[in-house]
């Protein structure tokens, strides 16, 4: 591979008490790639995603994002923990979309989107508002700029949440089961926005149960089980003709 991966996960370990959530997980994601992580709940896929933007700090191993070691500074042959402000700065290269949307309920859709650019990046409000309106247009919600989250449907809230993450101009977008909390008839509109984003060349790591989406959009699919990556390959390989029995068992349980 000529260019270095955008995300490099090297032998990452995570324990929650006695529960071994991630067991020496290694994974590379290249710029422009769309990676879908599938697996049963408790398989560690969400924990892995949260380690990438440091909502969870791993116990062992290393995660590199955009050339930076996350969470620590290298000095000689020792690692020093980063300050909270430095970790916040590292998070700027990743955007995250949550299962439960997590829009700020006391702000309108537009205010949600400009909050990061104005308050964190310190950019001029007028400029950010123009960009936010363009993002709302892109997710098909130009007419909802002044609506509060409580007055939006789940699908609309999630599309605003995607726009809020994009407003920070991240190099990488993380999606944590973005359609799991939605009514079935609202899933399509969110997936459509994500497909458009994938086509535009955004690097995306998507934890999902939407196998159809994975089949159609993913460059690579990773199947996780009990804290380990069991199988990885193209969507056709992993979803079409899985080699591992655990992958086969999971897929037959999901598809039946």
């Amino acid at each position, binding site marked *: 591979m000529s260019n270095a991966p955008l995300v490099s996960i090297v032998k990452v370990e995570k324990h929650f008490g006695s529960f071994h959530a991630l067991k020496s997980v290694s994974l590379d994601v290249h710029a422009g790639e769309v990676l879908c992580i599938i697996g049963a709940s408790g398989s560690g896929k969400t924990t892995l995603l949260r380690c990438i933007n440091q909502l969870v700090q791993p116990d062992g191993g290393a995660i590199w994002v955009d050339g930076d070691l996350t969470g620590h500074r290298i000095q000689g042959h020792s690692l020093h923990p980063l300050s909270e402000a430095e970790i916040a700065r590292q*998070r700027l290269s990743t955007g995250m979309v949550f299962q439960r949307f997590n829009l700020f309920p006391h702000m309108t859709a537009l205010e949600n989107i400009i*909050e990061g650019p104005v308050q964190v990046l310190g950019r001029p409000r007028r400029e950010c508002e123009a960009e936010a309106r363009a993002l709302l247009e892109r997710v098909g919600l130009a007419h909802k700029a002044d609506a509060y989250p409580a007055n939006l449907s789940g699908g609309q809230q999630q599309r605003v949440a995607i726009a809020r993450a994009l407003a920070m101009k991240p190099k990488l977008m993380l999606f944590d089961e973005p359609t799991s909390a939605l009514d079935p008839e609202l899933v399509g509109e969110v997936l459509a926005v994500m497909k458009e984003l994938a086509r535009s060349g955004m690097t995306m790591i998507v934890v999902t149960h939407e196998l159809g989406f994975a089949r159609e959009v993913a460059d690579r699919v990773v199947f996780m089980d009990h804290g380990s990556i069991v199988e990885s390959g193209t969507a056709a390989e992993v979803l079409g003709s899985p080699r591992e029995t655990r992958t086969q068992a999971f897929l037959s349980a999901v598809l039946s």
Partner: protein
Amino acid sequence: MTQPTTTSAALPDVSGYRLVPERHWGRWAAVAIIAVLLAGLARAFAVGDIEWNYVGEFFTAPAIMQGLVNTIWMSIAAMALGIALGVGTAIMRMSPNPVLQGVAMGYTWLFRGTPVILQLLLWFNLALVFPTVGFGDWSMRTVDVMTPMLAALLGLGINQGAYTSEVVRAGMLSVDIGQYEAAKSIGMTRMKSLRRIVLPQAMRVIIPPLGNEFIGMVKLTSLASVIQFAEILHASQNIYYANSRVIELLIVAAIWYLIIVSILTPLQMLLERRFARGTGGSR
């Protein structure tokens, strides 16, 4: 021809019947009893040994007015100090830093654990412990610094901070963990996410109990009369020590307290509406 939706041809058709409103006989009986009791109470006070003309005469007396002003501004100042300390303490208590947590818990323990009147007396008599206060070459006699006003402000405000911190902490706990995570995910530090995301949402939970605490504070200022702070109760007492119209002047003070509290209640409702943004109306 459409199918009938019911097959109850034998039941009477009630669509044309008159709707009789429900009669609340119990309520009328209760109103009658309350009216009789109130009339009796009013008569007792009217014929009792109260010179109502003194109430009218002293209601707007200059000393009472000065006391009223002192009560109002001391309530506001002590509450402001209490809110500032309370927010700071709640943030320390919720911090991941165990030293800050310990300081916050110690402060709350100390000031909630002692009666406020005792704290007022301690501040007022601070000169007995430290005859002078100052830094380096500059110092002053503590008795000159620790006026009744300063002692009342410190005693009431610092005590209030201990209570307010728990109210603020409850408000912060009421905000979903996902809000903290979303704030982090757009690159916010803890302090920025508290200021921009968490505290504005916590306000909705904090304001009703804080309004309650403010009303409590208006009445708590009366305790400062024991350290000679010239609030409205102290002013009333000074007058009745001179003219012996004890009940009349206590009634004057009572009416003023009721007026202040009556003004505060709608103000609280306005604030609540302000912080209910995005929740689909005031709840």
